[in-house]
């Protein structure tokens, strides 16, 4: 029973990371119908931005909570800017072309960030400074580190914040309208270019938060860290129902739990294959995802 709860906690904190990244995928897909392959790499850039900020503030020598919050917000702001730049200079020029063109562009941007990252940051992994002192809390034999707890809390707050933004604010209404029909939204006087840029900024900021959180728990960062995590987060978004915000959360947590559970068995070397096997199954039986609703394509 104890190991079960231990695995549950570990799975939840891994799943919360996938969920944070999946939210960005799901928002961009909801608005543009584009798989933003570069999203996982924005998460990597978030971790690196945090790395440089934390070193600049010398948080390694004197860890502090305020400093950690400052680093997280700084990294989110930097990545929001990067997200907007990517949208402006790579995706907007091809928006009126076919979806295949956008998809290939997205792959191009993803490769550019990964290998550009290798050229700029070097391919060898770097070690993220310890910004907060690690503490281990124990609840009746189940152990949880303060980093994992932080990840879970941040993910839950972000999801509720996002739900609020999308459903209760004016820009959220504009996002939903753009997602429903871009050209009609434009006719209604919505500045769709701004809405799309805002979506990218928001999604990229969330990915950056995910990047810094992960780096706190697992301090090894390298330019290719976003590749696998990003793909799995996308699978999480599809699993929960792409375009659906609570769905991204559910999908992320489910994949996190399954991976942790398999990692504890004799088949741990197959861990990386779980997410994709689940994806093929979900597409066979429920292509709209767990919380998604099937839509009929009209002519």
């Amino acid at each position: 029973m104890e190991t079960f709860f231990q695995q549950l906690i570990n799975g939840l904190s891994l799943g919360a990371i996938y969920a944070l990244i999946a939210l960005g995928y799901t928002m961009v897909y909801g608005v543009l119908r584009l798989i933003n392959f570069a999203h996982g790499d924005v998460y990597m850039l978030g971790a690196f931005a945090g790395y440089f900020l934390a070193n600049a503030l010398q948080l390694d020598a004197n860890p502090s909570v305020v400093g950690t919050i400052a680093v997280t917000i700084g990294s989110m702001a930097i990545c929001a800017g990067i997200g907007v730049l990517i949208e402006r200079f790579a995706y907007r020029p091809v928006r009126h072309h076919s979806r295949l063109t956008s998809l290939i562009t997205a792959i191009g941007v993803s490769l550019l960030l990964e290998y550009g990252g290798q050229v700029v940051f070097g391919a060898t992994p770097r070690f993220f400074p310890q910004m907060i002192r690690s503490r281990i809390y124990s609840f009746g034999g189940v152990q949880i580190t303060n980093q994992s707890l932080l990840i879970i809390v941040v993910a839950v707050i972000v999801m509720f914040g996002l739900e609020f933004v999308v459903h209760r604010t004016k820009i959220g209404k504009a996002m939903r309208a753009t997602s429903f029909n871009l050209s009609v939204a434009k006719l209604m006087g919505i500045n769709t270019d701004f809405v799309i840029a805002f979506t990218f900024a928001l999604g990229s900021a969330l990915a950056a938060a995910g990047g810094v959180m992960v780096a706190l728990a697992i301090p090894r960062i390298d330019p290719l860290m976003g590749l696998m995590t990003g793909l799995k987060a996308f699978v999480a978004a599809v699993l929960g129902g792409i375009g659906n915000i609570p769905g991204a959360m559910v999908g992320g947590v489910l994949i996190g739990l399954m991976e942790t559970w398999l990692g504890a068995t004799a088949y741990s070397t197959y861990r990386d294959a779980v997410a994709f096997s689940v994806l093929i199954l979900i597409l066979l039986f429920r292509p709209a995802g767990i919380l998604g609703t099937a839509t009929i394509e009209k002519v």
Partner: protein
Amino acid sequence: MRLPRKLLAIGLGTAVLVALNQVFEHGFGNFQINPYYARIINLIGINVTLAVSLNLINGLAGQFSIGHAGFMAVGGYTATYFTVYHGQALAALAGSTLNDAVGGSLAMVVSLTLGASAAALAGLVVGIPSLRLRGDYLAIVTLGFSEIIRVLILNIPAVGGATGFTDAIPITNFFWIFAMAMVTIVVVRNIATSTFGHALATIRGDEIAAEAMGINTTRHKVLAFVISAALAGVAGGLSGQLFANPLNPQNLNFVKSIEVIVMIVLGGIGSITGATVGATILTVLPEALRSFDRQFPGLRMVVYALLLILMMIFRPQGLLGRWELTWSWLGSRLWRRPAAGPAGTAGLDR
């Protein structure tokens, strides 16, 4: 083409390839081909097979697969496994050995057939769930599939696991590589000009309209995908059994799939000529840039990435678009005669 002319073309092609193969392996008079160049030429042939086969699903059918390396791995490992563990026995049946032309060819044919069948089966398993749906699902499923295959291979010690399949017996030669490249080009070209190919072009244009015209879109897409996967399997079988070129899960990853996509995007999505040109450029270019690559590791991939983005923004149809090199075009250039009608599938898009 009528049957006797077809047979003549096949016979002539085979004779030319056998002769060239002879030059490749034993030289001609005093001329010995540089083994480095020979290797690059062989890799061009394999990449042409890969690119043209991917072009069938990405170019002609308008779907988007980004896991071609996965099918290459399935076919390659199946074929190589067969030759390593059963090749000698098969060659002995014909009273020959694997080093001999007869035994080697026999093992090649059987192993490539098995590899292609395994890859086709994998294509069926991946294609049915993802091609029923519209949109980008195929992209993400093929990507996931190639990752699953990579993880599986890493866990099978009989095929070398993470160190790669270094036990492979080098029975691939120039003849088989280019014979298979020719076969791939002819198969894809014939599909493009057939009723099946026209149905695929309709699906590419508008899936809903295609369905309304009575085309079973899922069936057509899955069939095209399975054929594409089988041909990728052949390329894998050739690659894995080429001299000192073992299959390795590290080389059959996402980056390999992207390389094949860059080949067809560069050449022109939908054009067989384009895929061939793209494959050639992307095989020779990295070799030419090798010293540059050593000086700035990773910069080659940055160049690929920028190439993809800039191509998509400024010339999304690729270098050649949907243009095809055809006999009638050649004829019109050589004899200054007007070409007889629109050639290939190009006519459909006008």
